[in-house]
């Protein structure tokens, strides 16, 4: 079973996405902020995909992506970020930090799963 790591400061979004994912047969790991997530990555959590929010208090999603990419074991892991802003600069910045792609909130379950299917090996 593929494991997907979710990072979002909104409990509602964490819960709704993980509901969709578990129904689709994925295992999930969750963190409410980037610091907590990074700690888990540094401890070597086994995941196949990271989905993170960009706008979070404290460390933001872009910094998280950068930090995770620095860790050798996650060099090639797909990383998606959640965004509602269609701002291109934000996307570019996240891409430059090492993100693979994005999911526009609010996404339907199909959109979410399709995007995940696209990036998961």
């Amino acid at each position: 079973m593929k494991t997907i790591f979710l990072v979002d400061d909104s409990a509602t979004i964490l819960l709704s996405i993980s509901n969709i994912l578990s129904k689709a047969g994925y295992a999930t790991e969750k963190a409410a902020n980037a610091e907590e997530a990074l700690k888990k990555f540094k401890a070597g959590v086994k995941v196949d995909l990271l989905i993170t929010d960009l706008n979070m208090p404290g460390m933001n999603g872009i910094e998280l992506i950068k930090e995770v990419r620095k860790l050798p074991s996650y060099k090639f892991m797909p990383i998606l970020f959640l965004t509602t802003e269609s701002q291109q600069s934000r996307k570019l910045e996240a891409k430059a930090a090492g993100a693979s792609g994005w999911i526009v909130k609010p996404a339907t379950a199909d959109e979410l799963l399709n995007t995940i299917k696209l990036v998961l090996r």
Partner: protein
Amino acid sequence: MDELTSVFVQESREQLADMEAGLLRLEQDPQDADNINAIFRAAHTIKGASGVIECGFIESFTHKVENILDKLRNGEITVSGNLATLLLECCDHMGHLIDVLEAGQPAPSPEVTAQAEALGVRLDAQLAAASGTEVQQGADAGSVPVEHESPVEVSGGGVVITDGWLISVRFGPNVLRGGMDPLSFLRYLSSLGEILGIETLPDAMPEAEDMDPESCYLGFEIHFQTRASKADIERVFDFVQDECELRILPPNSKLSEYLKHIEELPEDTMRLGEILVRCGALTQAELDEALRLQHDSTCQHQEDSQGEDAHPQQLGEILVEQKVVQKALVDAAVGKQTQVSEKKAKESRMIRVQADKLDQLIDLVGELVIAGASTNLLANRSGQSDLVEATSILSRLVEDIRDSALQLRMVQIGETFNRFQRVVRDVAKELEKNIELQVSGGETELDKSVVEKIGDPLTHLVRNSMDHGIEAAEIRLARGKPAHGTLGLNAYHDSGSIVIEVSDDGGGLKKDRILAKAIEKGLVQSGHNLTDQEIVNLIFEPGFSTMEKVSNLSGRGVGMDVVRRNIMALRGSVEIDSRPGLGTTMRIRLPLTLAIIDGFLVGVDKGAYVIPLDTVVECIELKDQPDSRHYLNLRGEVLPFVRLREAFNIEGDIPPRENVVVVQYAGQKAGIVVDQLMGEFQTVIKPLGNLFKHLKGIGGSTILGSGEVALILDVQALIQRCASADELRMRNSNRLLGATNLN
């Protein structure tokens, strides 16, 4: 309500509180970019989450608010008092909408909707006021020019026969490092339609020694059949759009377009032509035709333009593109700077637990405490030292568990205090007074159930202080005080209770007016000599109000007695400390928890009573005390006492040796005379039934280890009883010389 909705409701309430706090700070410091970002993020989170739970009415309203905040964040509009007020009203409205959702109504009532519309109009007005054109420009600058999607051309002449799409993609070197696999795009593509033919182009692959295994060097020409639109196909490559070369030719394209395609690609023209033929996008005949055309046009082109070829235009495009990239980079850098300076939020590791579950746990811990006490008792009776030792370890653990369990219910009062920023701001505006709120001791913790119930009385005290306590600016200046008044909220622990202070630097209570009013209302008889404390306490009497003018906020005279009643229902008390001309401090004293207390067990005759341990100061023996007097000399101090036997009318013989438990509450000391002292005892408070509500001096009951019931004494009431009995005696002794005791 399903789990998701309840999570949303709770979360949104928290975000809303943050937003409100942020808006209040914004008024003080309109330039604080971090703060504006935080406010925006709160609104943004609510909007995002409401979208997820498909709550349209919250989402659409929050969206409007978010728009304004976004403009604010980008510096397109500036903060004004009006805007802050409007946004605060929007906060309130969002709170109402969340109430609607929580109540399980499918849509808000017409009044609420009308309110939303009215706020919407005002929000739009704010937007419009921020000069429309500028806003437009801002919006344009924010978005990067997007390549216009060319409509699918179904052309007339020069049509190639091929009915599939030609997708030409050259992946950038960083694709793998970005966590993407070229293969996954191809796989995903095949979910949109059928890949008729595919050619892999390893042309960019360098020699083995130069090759970086982490880079991607591959390109593909794909002949693809699908019903999907060009946009759909493009979307497949959305994530790598920026770093890969992607060209999509629709079916039945003009030959010239294929030609252009061949020209523009990095690979050798001849070779690419062959590739296209091989993957089936073109037939050999079409290719030949295309190359002939290319040759012709090149010749013609050279004749026409005399060296000024088509490339400059291309270069221009590239330059524009580069500019775009640079702009984006600049944007990104700016964005980054603001992000970094954003304050690192405290690392919150929270588990949300339903309050019922906690209550249940506390209940069980209570039972555990009782059962533990009973075990202890049996062990002590048995006299087996091993057993006594084991149970004492056990009871220490039970005590720890009790403390930890109670700690779970403890919340900081700071959150409640922060709500008052808003109250103070609104009330100050309404009263046209300039009042500053100073909060301290916000980290003081107390039981959640107490926090929930203290909000209303506190609000009333705060309003009262602002309305009656703090004077108008002119009077303040005349009295040599700063024009703006200060209202203080403070909390601290004091021997087993928590004290919450509401203080103001106003004029203090006017005792003569209070007394006059009380006489007028018939609350006291004229001619009575009342102490200062008694006079100020009159404001807690039902139906008392000194304000001639009834204001919107307070002064209806229904408040203060309700305040006191509410506080007393929490086993607390309220006292007033007023200094004329300097201000008033109202002190609310509350027990830390309502569930379990450390008690001191005493016995009178055959009954057992519990005195809350935190009120016990010491125990002494009652010696040589004549029956008539209710005072004793405690190391030179006068200590009034009450005999429990008399207070509760307990029959039976007075034992030869009586004991006095010295208790202290709110600075007052008194003695309680009992027969036996039975030691410390941890106890769970079981409330008394309604039938016994009027009983003075008893706060509750508990069950002893032996299974017997013990009554918990209400020390405050007993002390008051002492004090009033005291005064009665004093008064009587004044009038009737010689009479010592009428009690």
